[in-house]
């Protein structure tokens, strides 16, 4: 490495080495467990499920806090920006080199970990819901969340120019964005499929296998949803929401199912990953702007 890239590497190599080692260890654990599980009888496996779930969900946040946030905040905090910005290169080159190294190293580590996770998921027993149930652990979103988190950390660090507050703010924003997105945006990344079943056995599945976000609403004869709110109007039958058991509904009560079909799974992963990679790109540009303002 030469020029400003060497400096970026030399100043951040502890974070880079630690981050890379953790990503490699995580990938090794995921692949190792996947191989070990495949040698075990069914039923005795997936003991590490919760651990891996926590790992793949938390890793991007950890990278943002410990790798992203310190990148552009430390120099101004310690006064060494007056050393670096008065050598032969512009502040812009300095910031751009640091950010380029951050993104490349993070993308590499994220890819290694995400692929490890995907191998582990692929080896899970067939009776597992390995798609919607493990939505957060799939390679596309894991990869995109890592890039988003480190870019967020870099932008916040460049804006605040104090490392510790930048770490705290990065963590808070990352959690808020992630929770809000999962709750509000993710189910609607593609339009839900709606099916109304007017008559027939409720126990018979009308939803193709592999669907996610399945939501069933019982309807009255006018195909209006049953429920507390619907009662008081003519023809209202109290529904399950009012405490009436399903059995009381009768076999021919119509109902409506709303869901995401299995065919939407990977497109939605792609859309979510795309959104967060675009956000990461915007945050990198913001970081460049913040980092090069007067110290």
């Amino acid at each position: 490495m030469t020029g400003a890239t060497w400096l970026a590497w030399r100043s951040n190599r502890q974070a880079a080495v630690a981050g890379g080692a953790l990503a490699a260890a995580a990938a090794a654990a995921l692949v190792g467990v996947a191989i070990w599980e495949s040698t075990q009888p069914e039923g005795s496996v997936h003991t590490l499920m919760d651990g891996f779930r926590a790992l793949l969900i938390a890793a991007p946040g950890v990278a943002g806090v410990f790798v992203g946030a310190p990148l552009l905040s430390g120099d101004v905090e310690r006064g060494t920006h007056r050393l670096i910005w008065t050598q032969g290169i512009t502040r812009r080159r300095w910031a751009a080199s640091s950010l380029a190294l951050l993104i490349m190293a993070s993308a590499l580590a994220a890819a290694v970990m995400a692929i490890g996770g995907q191998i582990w998921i692929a080896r899970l027993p067939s009776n597992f819901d390995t798609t919607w149930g493990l939505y957060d652990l799939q390679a596309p979103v894991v990869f995109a969340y890592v890039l988003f988190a480190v870019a967020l950390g870099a932008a916040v660090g460049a804006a605040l120019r104090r490392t510790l507050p930048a770490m705290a703010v990065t963590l808070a924003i990352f959690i808020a964005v992630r929770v809000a997105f999962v709750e509000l945006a993710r189910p609607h990344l593609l339009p839900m499929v709606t099916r109304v079943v007017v008559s027939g056995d409720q126990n018979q599945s009308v939803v193709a296998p592999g669907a996610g976000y399945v939501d069933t609403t019982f309807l009255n004869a006018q195909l209006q949803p049953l429920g507390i709110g619907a009662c008081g109007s003519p023809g209202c039958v109290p529904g399950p929401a009012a405490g009436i058991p399903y059995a009381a509904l009768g076999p021919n009560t119509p109902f409506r199912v709303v869901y995401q079909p299995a065919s939407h799974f990977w497109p939605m992963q792609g859309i979510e990953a795309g959104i967060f990679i675009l956000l990461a790109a915007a945050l990198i540009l913001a970081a460049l702007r913040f980092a090069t303002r007067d110290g």
Partner: protein
Amino acid sequence: MNAALEARGLGKRYGSTWAIRDLTLSIPAGRVVALVGPNGAGKTTLLQLAVGLLTPNAGEPEIFGWSPRRNPTLVLARVGFLAQDRPLYRHFTVADTLRLGRELNPRWDQPMAEGRMRRLEIPLDRQVRTLSGGQQAQVALTLALAKRPELLLLDEPVVNLDPLARRQFLSEVMEAAAADGLTVVLSSHVVADLERVADYLVILASGRLQVAGDLERLLADHRWLVGPASEAGRVRGTVIQAGTGQRQCRILTRDGSAPPGWMTAPVSLEDLVLAYLGNPSAGALPAPAAIPA
């Protein structure tokens, strides 16, 4: 020939406070300039504006004719800058610190940098934080010199150094200035540090330029006049400072002459600086014609 550092109507404000205000200044190339003034006079702001660390709110400095804002790489290649507190990466080794200079500066002189470290007996494999303050200052100076600048800006370079390290640092600066014909600007609020080094004096007070000129000339133009207090009114010339006792008075004048019987004495740099700082309304600036339009 361009001036090494030139400014016209330069201003920099923090919030509503002007740190530098309407500063017009031209420092000829090849001089060793003492930039003095009390704390808060704007010395650091001026130096940081010159190297492009700060963006001015009015006017624009020029380094050998180049604007630090519009031509940053041209200016950065020509200016060696040593910031206040001499910042270095404390966990870098000396060798890493020199490599930093090599990687970031197109005209870097590695043999010169290593030679200086050898001569000063600073081991290349030591971490910067384990070096003494004087050694760290020398590493920082080497970083500024080995980029082969034409203008060296040193902001309070000897603060917090012991007297021996101060002397050694300043003699290294002088040697480099003499060898390469460097223009050097040293800021300090301790005038004694600069007495043996500088040949040009700039005094800043409250963000404005108060004195600028060749040091020998300034020292020759000013003198102490000492005589009976009753005759003080007969002193000719510009009075910069007057101290009157019961019977005798001491007056520091520019282009002054005394009545017969008075004693005259030369002024030191420190006398000169203190006299001007004590009298903010006095100034000694080159005639407007001396600054090219």
